[in-house]
């Protein structure tokens, strides 16, 4: 086999190899969807973030508008401080509410934004004031049990 044929085959090999890498990055991974867009940061404080993780999606009306950039603990107010990185093409009013929600019954947690009615728009570095913590299953169950127990007690007392 002469040299130019070898070069040709190696060229084909490198091309499809790089093509496979590109396929992995664009079609399998999520490189195309978000990372290059301009973003702005806002923080939100929660009493409990449950199982929220860094890079979890931030959704509004079900559409991904950003990602959780950072999660920290504030040692003075004992709250979780989350930093959200929102795509700058999406503008939200200043009284937007942030909730920690779960996708599906057992799915990952994400932050849901519900737009308010304020005329002023959220700017970089501002804080979302209205937040709602994650639902912790144990608390929910214990509330249910306590309310059941209370009902039972009432029924007995009434007799």
């Amino acid at each position, binding site marked *: 086999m002469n*040299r130019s044929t*070898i070069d040709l085959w*190696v060229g084909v090999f490198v091309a499809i190899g790089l093509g496979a*890498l590109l396929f*992995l*990055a664009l079609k*399998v*991974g*999520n490189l195309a969807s978000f990372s290059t867009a301009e973003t702005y940061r806002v923080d939100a404080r929660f009493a409990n973030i449950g199982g929220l993780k860094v*890079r979890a999606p931030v959704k509004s009306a079900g559409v991904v508008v950003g990602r959780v950039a950072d999660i920290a603990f504030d040692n003075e107010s004992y709250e979780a401080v989350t930093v959200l990185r929102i795509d700058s093409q999406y503008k939200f009013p200043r009284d937007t509410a942030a909730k920690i929600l779960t996708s599906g019954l057992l799915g990952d947690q994400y932050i849901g934004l519900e737009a308010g009615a304020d005329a002023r728009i959220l700017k970089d570095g501002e804080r979302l004031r209205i937040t709602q913590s994650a639902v912790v299953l144990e608390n929910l169950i214990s509330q249910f049990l306590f309310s059941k127990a209370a009902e039972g007690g009432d029924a007995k007392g009434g007799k």
Partner: protein
Amino acid sequence: MRAALVRLGAMVTTTVWRLGYASRFFVYLLAHSGTALRRFRLTVREIYFAGVLSLIIILVSGLFVGMVLGLQGYDTLQRYGSSEALGVLVALSLVRELGPVVAGLLFASRAGSAITAEIGLMKATEQLSAMEMMAVDPIARVVAPRFWGGVLSMPLLAALFSAMGIFGGYLVGVVLIGVDEGAFWSQMQAAVDVRNDILNGVIKSVVFGVAVTLIAVFEGYDSVPTAEGVSRATTRTVVTSSLAILALDFVLTALMFTGGN
């Protein structure tokens, strides 16, 4: 009893001695790879032998591994009513683990053994000594191009293996079984991270490429220059590099995927 102890001691010292020799060989190889990179034609020729000729086995194995993942994954996932997660399962297991590891094992047995046999035979027929007589450094002229050819081919082969495997999983999951196509791709895209998963997979394949090719060229260069010696060296290449891949994979996985996340 005493003879057994002596043999054991000899085995340990030989192993340690060879490890030291291999490290020295690696440093010397890196220092003298200028020729291989300047006269890139030499390396291109080795990419042809190590990479292009391994394409068929890599592509076919990747396709079948992906198809098996699709079948097995579907069988397990549908018990939990989450067969849409099939894409995530196939893509993550291929990109993180199976792609680099299985491509590395195939590469070791397909290309690594060929490199060892070639260099070993060159040594047995005294071609390497002849080069030294002509003041050509055999490490720079023979070993380094093979080394770089292997190192450059391996990540491309692993990426091809993963891509082909995902295609195989798609073929079985979506086309044959009928998992929803949109969910297959979108859940995959949501779960696979470019830096955490794909880049780490590429790093793994580069490390495996260096390990396998280094072992292959070293075993060839260090082989006993007889027919039996070359055949033993070839066997050792496949065994050692397979073990090295699996051990390195454990170490790399522990480093990459256990923090935070």
